[in-house]
């Protein structure tokens, strides 16, 4: 029975049931439980299916949002998932980690007056992807006959997985090189289990392998093979670099190398990838802080703070230079952190970490800031207030103020063009200055989101396809790949 617009407008947004804060801040299970099919249908009915579809333009990979939501309203959940997958290969991931309020939901007509009343697009995306996976309804697409071209993808994070998925479906032979012993990049080492269960990432990677993507783990490109070797020795026709951001930044203040001071990358990698939260079954140790200070206001800072709480901290404080509204973290994460009793010291910046004689952190001295004139990004610039210092105790400091480019590949590929920060320069389609070498994700943009990295991967896959097909037309045969055919496994 078709609902009228008025009836649709009358339905309130369905929140997703969650573990209560007092329970979840001591376990690593996922926070939201997910929709029931009834809730999903009711939420889907709120969509007005507007003509100009602002949500689609708000999505970096242009998922046909009203179409998949309409299918949910008809209870065609698996079909809905397949519609999403025409544009987004990782819906179970994106439904959980995309900053929807700044993308699709941010421009939803239903949220115009009150953003919290936008259609819960992220929740719905998550629901259908979970439904499809949990009911074993995932379908492998038809793979065309191999076209004879071989593509190497460096890094199995969101952008690498997207490139691999797109190209394998176009008939390419695709090989992923992953530096770690597990695939997924930031999805496994960075984002905690309580926000993105690792089983989901494993399923996605398994699906790619089922399509014929080869994955070599423990392979640090730049060291094990140089980019040039991938062409000349290994016979690849194109290479995609999606190695992620890289080196953590530490503040240039006294006490940064004290014991108890960690980069958020280290802290999260220990807990997530190495599963230190299951220590000592998993052998990688973790220092458990009692009073933990987290520096930064992004998703990584929220993840670090919430992990510290779950590992047994008594008190966790986020120290951020700017104001609450300016925090780059996803709204839901900051909200969850607050619910989990994480304190926020806003407009504050550390100037020194104190340590004891044994070299362990014991406290922090901060300076208060106020908001001044807007900077280039349009955000009001934080300005230090004179003589406004304050101190507090902390035995652990997690530094989450961003990163710089990892030089492993660029330093071993001397003719690769990088910008002044060391990030790889590309055109809008991911083409670097080197022929048939492409790059995308954080190694091009600096730290950004999962979905923007996937968008970059999607564009690069198109460029690779276009360039290699042109090459194929010109030479009427693949340049190098076919020589190697036959001796692969």
């Amino acid at each position, binding site marked *: 029975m078709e609902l009228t617009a008025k009836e649709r407008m009358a339905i309130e947004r369905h929140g997703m049931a969650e573990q209560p804060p007092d329970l979840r801040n001591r376990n690593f299970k996922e926070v939201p439980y997910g929709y029931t099919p009834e809730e999903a249908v009711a939420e889907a009915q709120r969509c007005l299916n507007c003509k100009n579809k602002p949500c689609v333009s708000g999505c970096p990979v242009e998922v046909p949002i009203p179409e998949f939501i309409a299918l949910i309203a008809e209870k065609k959940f698996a079909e809905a998932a397949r519609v999403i997958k025409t544009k987004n290969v990782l819906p179970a991931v994106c439904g959980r980690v995309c900053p929807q309020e700044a993308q699709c939901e941010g421009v939803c007509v239903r949220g115009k007056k009150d953003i919290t009343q936008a259609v819960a697009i992220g929740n719905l995306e998550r629901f259908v992807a979970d439904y499809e996976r949990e009911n074993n309804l995932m379908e492998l697409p038809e793979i065309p006959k191999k076209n004879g071209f071989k593509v190497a993808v460096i890094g199995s994070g969101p952008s690498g997985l997207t490139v691999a998925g797109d190209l394998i479906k176009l008939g390419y032979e695709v090989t992923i090189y992953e*530096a*770690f*012993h597990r695939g997924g990049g930031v999805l496994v*080492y960075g984002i905690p289990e309580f926000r993105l269960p690792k089983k989901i990432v494993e399923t996605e990677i398994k699906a790619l392998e089922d399509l014929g993507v080869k994955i070599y*783990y*423990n*392979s*640090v490109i730049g*060291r*094990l*093979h140089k980019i040039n070797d991938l062409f000349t020795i290994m016979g690849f026709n194109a290479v995609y670099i999606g190695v*992620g951001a*890289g*080196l*953590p930044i*530490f503040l240039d203040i006294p006490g*940064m*190398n*004290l*014991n*108890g001071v*960690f*980069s958020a*990358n*280290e802290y999260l*990698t*220990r807990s997530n990838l*190495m*599963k230190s939260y299951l*220590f*000592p*079954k*998993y*052998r*990688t*140790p*973790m*220092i458990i802080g009692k009073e933990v200070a987290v520096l930064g206001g992004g998703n990584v800072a929220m993840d670090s703070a919430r992990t510290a709480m779950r590992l047994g901290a008594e008190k966790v404080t986020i120290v951020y230079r700017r104001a609450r509204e300016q925090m780059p973290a996803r709204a839901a994460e900051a909200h969850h952190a607050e619910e989990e009793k994480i304190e926020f010291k806003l407009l504050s910046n550390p100037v020194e970490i104190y340590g004891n004689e*044994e*070299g362990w952190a014991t406290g922090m001295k901060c300076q208060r800031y106020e908001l001044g004139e807007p900077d280039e990004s349009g955000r009001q610039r934080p300005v230090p207030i004179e003589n406004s210092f304050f101190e507090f105790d902390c035995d652990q400091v997690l530094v989450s103020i961003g990163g710089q480019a*990892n*030089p*492993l590949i660029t330093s071993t590929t001397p003719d690769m063009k990088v910008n002044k920060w060391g990030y790889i320069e590309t055109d809008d389609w991911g083409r670097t200055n080197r022929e048939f070498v492409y790059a995308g994700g954080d190694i091009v943009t600096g730290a950004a989101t999962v979905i923007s990295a996937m968008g970059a991967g999607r564009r690069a896959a198109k460029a690779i396809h276009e360039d290699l097909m042109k090459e194929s037309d010109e030479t009427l045969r693949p340049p190098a790949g076919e020589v190697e055919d036959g001796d692969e496994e």
Partner: protein
Amino acid sequence: MYEIIEKSEIFNVHKMVITAPEIAHSIRAGQFVIVMGNEYSERIPLTVSDWNTDAGTITLYILEVGISTLELARMKIGDSIYAVTGPLGVPSEIKNYGTVVLGGGCYGIGGIYPIAKACKEAGNKVISIIEARYSAMFYHEKELHAVSDQVLYATSDGSKGIRGKVEDVIREMLEKGVKIDHTFFMGCTQMLERCSEATRPYAIPTKVALNSIMLDGTGMCGACRVSVGGQTKFTCVDGPEFDGHKVDWKELYTRKSAYVERETVAYQSYSHECMAETRLQQEL
């Protein structure tokens, strides 16, 4: 992949030859690998002491110091190691310096071998000095002799070479006026610091292979950061070799001790698991 094809033990130092053809092909002197014995293991950085490109193997000498090295050492010939990642780190800078002295202790006795070999091939006069508590603890000697003009020994009990340490040998050489143009040292942090102090008064270029705590080994986490000449460096991507005269040793000792307490917990848990397993076997 990563099958153990040869294994032996010399007083708590375990030699393992592992199948890793791609690593054997790419590795250069001074680089290391990160090893996980099984999927629950820590990632342990280990210097590669030798490799054979034709056979596709690498040789590691593993000092048994904690739970993860212990579990690795318990693996048998024919077992496969879960993960071996590398080569990592910047290769040693090899050129014709003139006379090069290499000092090695503990796992560094094997560790200096590829650097000695590369130095020899580059035309240097190579003097290798190795230290141990007593003579039976030396290993990889034949190979080291083959690439060194001279191999000198130091033992705590005087059972081979001089009674003392590597730095005592170096001091004696320097006092006698032996001209040394470049030095490399590998071993425990105390040894690296003492050797650096021995060469400092003579301003001899001194490279020390640091062994700070590591996690990913690709520069991503900063666990291995050290202060060198007042600057923060990452051992995994900027090192492992640094100027021994500029390293902040005190900070390095502190940072290396960070997990001692947790390691004891892991070790105790391992003992419990072992006892439980033994009991189970007895019951069966």
